[in-house]
């Protein structure tokens, strides 16, 4: 899934178009007559590109442009009043705030988990490594009711905390818990390949030069994994902002307090307030595009730094 996405981007960057051996020789071989017209000798370009563009337009591009057009035809004033109503702003604060906190917690512990999985050998490692991917495979609604059962006052964890007056479920804290579950694999899977690539030589060099363990971590390891950490953080954050299924069960869903933006879209739709739903959707779409741009920018800078 998304950890593969990062790999893909790395691959797109690293693999230049394979030079075509037929055209490269200059002297056309048998079967090379195609290459006079096209750059690749392999047929099926028109058909496959046609299918791709058709399907992409039908499923993704036309529906998304319908959303944008709908917002545009309503006019700017109408857009701002619906997308930035008091209740909507409160919902953005909840959604963005909890997604940020969850991604930050996961950045710390995800780095540790990735480090342990890459560096240390121990029994059950393969099992734990596979478990990290569970949030990708477990349906969000299932995660939502399970987390609620655990952290409610009568649950395994909730009943331990209730005597001390600590409440996690049906509070904004509950949203953070759900988003920690959802976001963990994004961070771990993004950092893992970078840590594995890094090897141990730079650390040993640093140690030889007299750095202690903490200095080595701060000045050698952390700068190397920082781009991957930021990318993983942005992926987890973007996913957390849009997350719905795992959150609504545990959130309590009180307007102005624990109501997330995606839920407000659904509430608006149920009241046939299409304009309201559209406005909030546009703001969320822009936020996730912003996160994507940040990721691309970080990776672009990395490629330049590495001279690729």
């Amino acid at each position: 899934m998304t950890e593969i996405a990062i790999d893909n981007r790395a691959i797109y960057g690293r693999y230049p178009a394979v030079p075509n051996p037929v055209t490269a020789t200059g002297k056309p071989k048998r079967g090379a007559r195609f290459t006079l017209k096209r750059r690749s000798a392999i047929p099926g370009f028109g058909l496959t590109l046609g299918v791709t563009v058709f399907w992409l337009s039908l499923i993704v591009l036309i529906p998304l442009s319908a959303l944008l057009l709908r917002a545009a035809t309503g006019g700017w004033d109408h857009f701002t009043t619906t997308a930035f109503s008091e209740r909507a702003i409160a919902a953005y604060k909840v959604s963005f705030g909890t997604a940020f906190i969850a991604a930050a917690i996961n950045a710390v512990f995800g780095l540790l988990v990735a480090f342990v999985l890459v560096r240390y050998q121990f029994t059950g490692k393969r099992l734990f490594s596979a478990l990290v991917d569970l949030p990708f495979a477990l349906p969000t609604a299932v995660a939502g009711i399970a987390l609620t059962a655990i952290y409610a006052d009568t649950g395994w964890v909730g009943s331990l905390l209730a005597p001390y007056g600590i409440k996690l479920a049906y509070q904004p804290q509950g949203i953070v818990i759900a988003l920690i579950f959802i976001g963990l694999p994004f961070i771990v899977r993004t950092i893992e390949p970078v840590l594995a690539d890094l090897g141990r030589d730079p650390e040993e060099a640093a140690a030889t030069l007299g750095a202690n363990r903490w200095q080595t971590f701060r000045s050698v390891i952390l700068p190397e994994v920082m781009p991957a950490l930021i990318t993983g953080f942005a992926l987890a954050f973007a996913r957390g902002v849009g997350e719905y299924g795992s959150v609504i069960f545990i959130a309590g869903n009180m307007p102005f307090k624990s109501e997330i933006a995606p839920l407000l879209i659904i509430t608006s739709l149920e009241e046939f307030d299409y304009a309201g739903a559209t406005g909030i959707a546009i703001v969320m779409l822009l936020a996730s595009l912003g996160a994507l741009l940040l990721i691309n920018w970080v990776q672009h800078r990395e490629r330049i730094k590495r001279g690729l």
Partner: protein
Amino acid sequence: MNRRRPLDAPAWLKASLILIALGYIAVVILLPLAAVFTEAFASGLPAWLEAVSEPDAQAAIKLTLLVAAISVPLNCVFGVAASWAVAKHDFPGKSLLVSLIDLPFSVSPVVSGLVYVLLFGAGGWLGPWLQENDIQIIFALPGIVLATVFVTFPFVARELIPLMQAQGRDEEEAALSLGATGWQTFRKVTLPNIKWGLLYGVLLTNARAMGEFGAVSVVSGHIRGETNTMPLHIELLYNDYNLSAAFAVASLLAGLALITLVLRTILEWRHGDELVAGGH
């Protein structure tokens, strides 16, 4: 083998790092998984059987299987076509096309459902025309399939594009120069090379298709026994305070997730080199 290098962390530090990491995974991931199965069988096996075999649950299971059976092959064909076009040919705008294929990943599931309501719903652009011609898309099977196709859109393509790019074009070009047709080349040269990657992509697509909640929730209409998929049925039972039944149906989906993870791990283990050839 366990030779300790002078620069390795001391044993106490290493042990505590491992313990913290495993403890974090246990609390964040293992605990919810255990909760699903514990709650599902809390009232005993007969109650579990009854919950998954009552008519509404059966209808939800059938609908979920039907939706996956339609949307997975559609995205499979798309994914193969897209990766063939992108990996085996050069054309301007290629990286834009790849970014657009990735787009559904970064859209909130609720927004994915919303766009179809805005297009096909009663107040949507095509709504009045659809009503006149008595075609139901929103709150019916077509809408659920569309939303599912949207959220699972990039999985197969994203798996195959880097794989086919890394494999290059030499083998296909050799087959073609020996007189094979395009279709023969694809079937006998390309397909055997990408079959494990394709299976991997299909697994991920299927897991997500059967478990999608947010997008489907917006377009389904929640008609009990008709347009409720398994995740929606779980929500309905849960909101009715029928917790053991909700967790019983949830345990089926959790089982599917576990099977997906096991198959995925086996694939990575046995055919890892054919999944991300030359990845890093």
